[in-house]
């Protein structure tokens, strides 16, 4: 057991806050896109069902946004409180995207406020829809900016370190470091895909619970099609990320694949266990697939962990995080694929129970993939906080009370998690879609 010193506790607290924040942040990035699509369809096809979808999603969104905002505020301050030495360097080199992010927040917050309270205030509905554009730009831009900061931690550049002082600073180079393109692409596509899946899961559950109206059917089809498109994007971006790792951060890929010897035609390992001599057992082996993942050719040379000093190896359990993420990634393509196939082929019924259950499971699974992906990315960076420059162990605060802070925040997140679920359930139970439809758009059409 590692001892619970300040470094360990700071890592735990940072990890806990981020794992909690990313749930709401992912929703915050993706749901505005889905709301925008639904509202647009509602206007284009003059179909009030889609408009109602947009309205109801937006209403639930007010709750998750609030939790996203407060947890984001927490992690923003915690970075300075727990990693002061890191932030001192970061402030000199990578403050620019952090600063830009606050403008993105302003933009998002202002237009979200306007959007939520102006449903019936504009003469033309399309004006209201236009408000979704700055919201999407704001939230996706905030994901972009914060991800560049994280990318910088993985492949720092744009400065020189001379006697512990940062010189020759180039903020633009720091922001557009080698990790930025793949990371940003993967983070944004996976947020869209996950949000689409979460909404699809909600629709599937209400369908399974016996609410089999037009509303649920339309919701399912719309979210499933979106989920398929975004999941394909996520898989593509994941593939690009792996190629990035092979080139710029090979130890992270090697740790994920238990790949010790540098070689051509490397095999891809799925699951399995590692014995005390670092021999892999019970794994599914796909010949040469790792080489393909790393460089689009079956004889790409893949650098192994043994090329790195022992004390710079990331923990090897990240293998499971990587595998779980990829497995869920396949699932997220397969399930919507089957759904759409059954929908297109006339004699099949896509609303069958097993498939709906699979969709329902997809929501939580997608969110888990986000968590696994981040844990892999973050733990796989160990022992570095700034790869090649500063180790995590040298960056933590010397202040007292990290353990107490951890306990306080753990309680806070627990309460927030419970209340979020309770409040959301209450909100939608009290006001079912059919009833709201009748009330807004009159008789007859619902059901």
């Amino acid at each position, binding site marked *: 057991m590692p001892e619970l010193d300040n470094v360990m506790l700071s890592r735990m607290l940072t990890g806990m806050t981020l794992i909690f924040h990313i749930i709401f942040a992912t929703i915050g990035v993706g749901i505005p896109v889905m709301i925008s699509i639904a509202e647009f369809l509602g206007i284009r096809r003059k179909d009030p069902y889609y408009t109602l979808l947009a309205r109801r999603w937006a*209403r639930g969104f*007010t709750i998750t946004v*609030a*939790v996203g*905002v*407060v947890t*984001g*505020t*927490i992690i*923003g*301050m*915690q970075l*300075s*409180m*727990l990693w*002061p030495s890191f*932030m*001192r*360097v*970061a*402030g*000199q080199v990578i*403050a*620019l995207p*952090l*600063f*830009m*992010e*606050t*403008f993105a*927040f*302003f*933009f998002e*917050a*202002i237009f*979200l*406020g*306007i959007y*939520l*309270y*102006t449903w*019936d*205030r504009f003469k033309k509905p399309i004006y209201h829809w236009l408000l979704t554009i700055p919201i999407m730009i704001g939230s996706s831009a905030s994901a972009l900016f914060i991800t560049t900061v994280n990318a910088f931690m993985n492949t720092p550049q744009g400065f020189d370190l001379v006697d512990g002082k*940062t010189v020759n*600073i180039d*903020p633009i180079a720091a922001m557009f470091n080698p990790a930025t393109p793949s990371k940003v692409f993967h983070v944004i596509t996976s947020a869209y895909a996950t949000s689409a899946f979460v909404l699809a899961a909600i629709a599937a559950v209400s369908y399974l619970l016996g609410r089999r109206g037009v509303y649920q059917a339309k919701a399912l089809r719309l979210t499933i099609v979106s989920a398929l498109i975004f999941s394909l994007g996520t898989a593509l971006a994941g593939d690009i990320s792996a190629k990035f790792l092979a080139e710029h951060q090979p130890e992270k890929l090697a740790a994920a694949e238990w790949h010790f010897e540098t070689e051509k035609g490397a095999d891809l390992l799925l699951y399995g266990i590692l014995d005390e001599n670092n021999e892999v057992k019970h794994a599914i082996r796909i010949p040469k697939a790792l080489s393909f993942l790393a460089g689009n050719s079956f004889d790409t040379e893949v650098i192994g962990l043994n090329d790195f000093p022992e004390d710079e190896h990331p923990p090897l359990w990240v293998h499971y995080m990587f595998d779980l993420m990829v497995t869920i990634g396949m699932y997220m393509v397969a399930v919507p694929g089957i759904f759409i196939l059954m929908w297109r082929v006339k004699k099949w019924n896509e609303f069958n129970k097993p498939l709906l259950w699979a969709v329902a499971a997809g929501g939580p699974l997608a969110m888990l993939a986000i968590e696994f992906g981040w844990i892999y990315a973050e733990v796989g960076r160990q022992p570095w906080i700034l790869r090649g420059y500063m180790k995590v162990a040298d960056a933590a*605060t*010397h*202040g*007292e*009370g990290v353990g107490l*802070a951890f306990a*306080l925040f753990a309680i*806070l997140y627990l309460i*927030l998690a419970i*209340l*979020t679920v309770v*409040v*959301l359930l*209450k909100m939608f139970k009290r006001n079912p879609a059919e009833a709201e439809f009748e009330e807004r758009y009159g008789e007859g059409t619902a059901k």
Partner: protein
Amino acid sequence: MSLDVLGITVLWIFLYGYLIVASIDFGAGFFAFYGKLTGKDHIINALISRYLSPVWEVTNVFFVFFFVGIVGFFPDTAYYFGTALLIPGSIALILLAVRGSFYAFGNYGSKDNIIFLFLYGSTGLLIPASLSTVLTISEGGFLEESGGKVIFLAKELFSSFYSWSVVLLAIVSVLFISAAFLTYYADRAADVEARGVLRKFMLSWSGPTILASLLIFISLKGHNPVHFENALNYWWMFALSLFFFFVATYLVYRKRNYGTAFIAVMLQFFFAFFGYGVSHLPYIIYPFITIQESVVNPTMGTALVIVFIAGLFLLIPSLLLLMKLFLFDAEYIKGKK
């Protein structure tokens, strides 16, 4: 203007912005809770919620802007405060989190839940109290550097007369600013009953505000004489502040020009806040950190300023749109939209 002065001015302006918008929000939470307790909630709470609902998230961004900005412009400050203020900072954060999320839970979820409302109201007073202690700490005497560590002297803080007078000022100012704004808002809504209640709030918090300000001066003299002397050099700013206080109170007392009265309140705090700030310089944290020594490297500083200016071009029109729709649209305020 040199980069350090420019940086601190930008940050101070945003902190001033936060002071105003957050005070309105914090005080409103307290009044909403108080309204519920005294059975006046049907008079004022709908009005309050009509203003707060669309803007609370924007209020929070002002705060985020400030602490991200300070890491960017003055990275060493973040280092000192970060190390020293883990526990007090965490408590302030938890209060902020409880407040923000419970507002959403209460307002969009379970309407009129008294516990949500209580937490929302009481955190509205506790947060300004805890945030204001950061300013107190920047006056010096509460941080100690030894062996490369920065230590926070909590006992000194809790037993300091100066520190408590700052807390007092923070709380009464929040209530005063908030009441002044809501009186104006109620007037726009032509809601005579609510205006009457809020106007009384505003007037009854005016005396305490000015007394608490005087108390600050007296205790600052004892706590940090250098700063006190410096403040006297800017006496005219404090005099202007006092002048605008009288203008605001007079107008509200005479039941006229509530809009002008609120602008006067803003000016009152503008002059006091900037008088305080400018006499605090060059120190950010007395006596450890000055703006000249801790300012970020010029390349980053310039980049931040460029982004800031570009950002304002986005921000100002958007804020104006927000205000036009929710502050100056009489129909909306009256609840007809």
